[in-house]
């Protein structure tokens, strides 16, 4: 019998029941809730007279539509300007109080974007199944978890039963060996992967990211990569356990200590794909070939190296591709054949569950230090992913670097990643953004998003256009 993949092992260890129609009842270890996709689930529980199956598995925090403005935040829930958003946040608080669910409220230490605060607090640990009513839940796979997003009916289902009715996916391994060049970050790696396999490349698969590049990567970096598995079409992305994983987890709030820790570590060490495991699909990239990446269109697969030019419509192979590129260039207001570095930037957003962790803040600050935002740039938002990231960054003096450079240092939340609060792009504005989706209107109606790494975003803020960050930094 062939060996098992990491995904096979995680699946197997959570299987409660297999059913005749190929579906299965999978046990869920951790469920994270936020204000937008939970209200109807809680209402459903109430209407049916049900209670959560377990309390010590759920954790909640508001993130999607809270304000990131300091004064508004200080005023508490009442300070949220939009009435509907205010009610959603208040409803989350009320539901958590009513059902006894642990919640980190808006201004508490512990609050943050669900996918930043979960791993950071030790809510998610290796070997767990993790779900959340949000498609970027794959982020937690960086800790060798089986993690994915669910819909509102499923949120209710998990609350009530601690299980999910689901079907097994296929296995894909994406191996990136070699060494990343100077100035090349995890964000560039995942964008390059999406550029290679496309936004549907991972559909139906659970992706394991393997190879030297990921072994050398921090957990924060692995989270950036797993986060965007969904942009490659896969609901699940993950990285096997190694010393980096164990070191990251140790000492966090909800993580065991003493004998229990020893016992856990012993188990966690087994969370790697067996050497003879079979994958249904394999993709291989060379890490040393990857340059800093920039998206130029309205799909994450419309991506190029910063040293490249924007594709021309007439060079596309099929009529369908020609139409897609033409439509994207029109929306983005760009010319085929022009240099990526000619793309102007009106606003810059450094944040989101993809890139708002402490390392991301440090990378952006390293570029911003001693420099000024270009006059042509209207606004640069730096939004830490959580209260803990904010606290750490301030302890390191990063906030002062950003402010001295002319950037705004905000309160933790999703912010301009999806523009549900007042952080938005105006029509036609270009934004260098560290978030994960560049769909039409994602960051505000008519807004034009260019997905980049935190260092590239800070560099664009300084230059006033997309620029190769490597030309601004000295190699050490």
């Amino acid at each position: 019998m062939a060996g098992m993949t990491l995904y096979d092992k995680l699946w197997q260890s959570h299987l409660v029941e297999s059913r005749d129609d190929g579906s299965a009842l999978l046990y869920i270890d951790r469920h994270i809730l936020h204000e937008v996709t939970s209200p109807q689930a809680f209402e459903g529980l109430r209407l049916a007279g049900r209670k959560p199956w377990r309390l010590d598995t759920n954790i909640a925090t508001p993130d999607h539509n809270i304000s990131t403005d300091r004064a508004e935040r200080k005023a508490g829930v009442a300070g949220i300007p939009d009435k509907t958003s205010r009610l959603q946040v208040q409803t989350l608080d009320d539901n958590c109080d009513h059902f006894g669910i642990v919640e980190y409220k808006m201004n508490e230490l512990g609050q943050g974007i669900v996918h930043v605060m979960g791993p950071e607090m030790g809510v998610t640990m290796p070997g767990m199944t993790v779900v959340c009513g949000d498609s970027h839940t794959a982020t937690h796979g960086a800790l060798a978890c089986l993690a994915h997003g669910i819909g509102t009916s499923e949120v209710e289902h998990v609350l009530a039963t601690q299980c999910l009715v689901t079907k097994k996916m296929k296995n894909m391994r994406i191996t990136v060996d070699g060494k990343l060049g100077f100035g090349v970050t995890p964000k560039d790696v995942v964008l390059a992967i999406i550029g290679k396999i496309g936004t549907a490349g991972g559909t139906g698969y659970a992706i394991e990211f393997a190879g030297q590049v990921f072994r050398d990567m921090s957990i924060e970096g692995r989270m950036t990569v797993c986060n965007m598995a969904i942009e490659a079409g896969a609901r699940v992305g993950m990285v096997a356990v190694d010393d980096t994983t164990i070191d990251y987890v140790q000492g966090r709030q909800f993580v065991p200590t003493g004998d229990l820790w020893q016992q856990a570590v012993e188990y966690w060490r087994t969370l790697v794909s067996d050497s003879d495991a079979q994958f249904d699909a394999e993709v291989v990239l060379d890490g040393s070939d990857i340059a800093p990446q920039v998206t130029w269109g309205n799909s994450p697969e419309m991506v190029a190296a910063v040293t490249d030019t924007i594709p021309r419509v007439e060079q596309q192979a099929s009529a369908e591709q020609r139409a897609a590129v033409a439509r994207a260039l029109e929306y983005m207001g760009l010319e085929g054949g022009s240099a990526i570095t000619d793309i102007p930037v009106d606003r810059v957003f450094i944040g989101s569950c993809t890139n708002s962790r402490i390392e991301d803040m440090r990378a952006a600050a390293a570029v911003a230090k001693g420099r000024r935002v270009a006059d042509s740039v209207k606004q640069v938002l730096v939004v830490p992913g959580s209260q803990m990231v904010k606290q750490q960054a301030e302890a390191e003096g990063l906030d002062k670097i950003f402010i001295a450079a002319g950037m705004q240092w905000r309160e933790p939340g999703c912010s301009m990643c999806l523009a549900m609060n007042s952080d938005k792009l105006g029509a036609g504005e270009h934004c260098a953004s560290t978030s994960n989706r560049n769909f039409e209107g994602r960051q505000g109606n008519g807004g034009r998003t260019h997905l980049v790494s935190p260092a590239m975003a800070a560099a664009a803020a300084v230059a006033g256009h997309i620029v190769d960050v490597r030309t601004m930094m000295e190699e050490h």
Partner: protein
Amino acid sequence: MQAFTTHQGLAAPMDRANVDTDMIIPKQFLKSIRRSGFGPNLFDELRYLDVGEPDSDNSGRPLNSEFVLNQPRYQGASVLLARKNFGCGSSREHAPWALEDYGFRTVIAPSFADIFYNNCFKNGLLPVVLTESQVEQLFAAVYATPGLQICVDLPAQTVTAGELSFSFEIDAFRKECLLKGLDEIGLTLQSSSAIKAYESARAAQHPWVFGAIKRA
């Protein structure tokens, strides 16, 4: 979830094909934090002459007297007769929520969009598929006979209205769930003992998974 066995009620005709979910419940109502209360905004754009917002007082809004559900003879309808591809478009679960909240228990049509069809079963609403010609005959009967009641008998899998009687097909598993009023949660809860057995085995093996999350 409400069980469905046999339902007899006044029928209302929704005489157009490809009714999409945005028509059933427009997007501004998705900001709601509730799963109930969508009934007054069912078919909002067709039903009212002004534009509805989530916080509008619907009782004071100008009604479109042309719209079928506003006509006196269809007040209190609980069976919706519809045309092909009913429920197409966005996957919003708010569409069956709105139909149910308005008071419909069943929708009869020659075909339904996939996701909508699935969502109905999650919410105790029975979608019945009949042939085009059968549906045509029901429309004719509804128009000809004010107050016509249609009876949908799920155990027998029949639809009867006056002289007309048709049988319909339904997946056995789904039928069972509706008859018992089991939603997916109810079904999973039938496996409660398997879930509990899994939990005790797991707690013995991986105790750190349990009991950790509590306020510091």
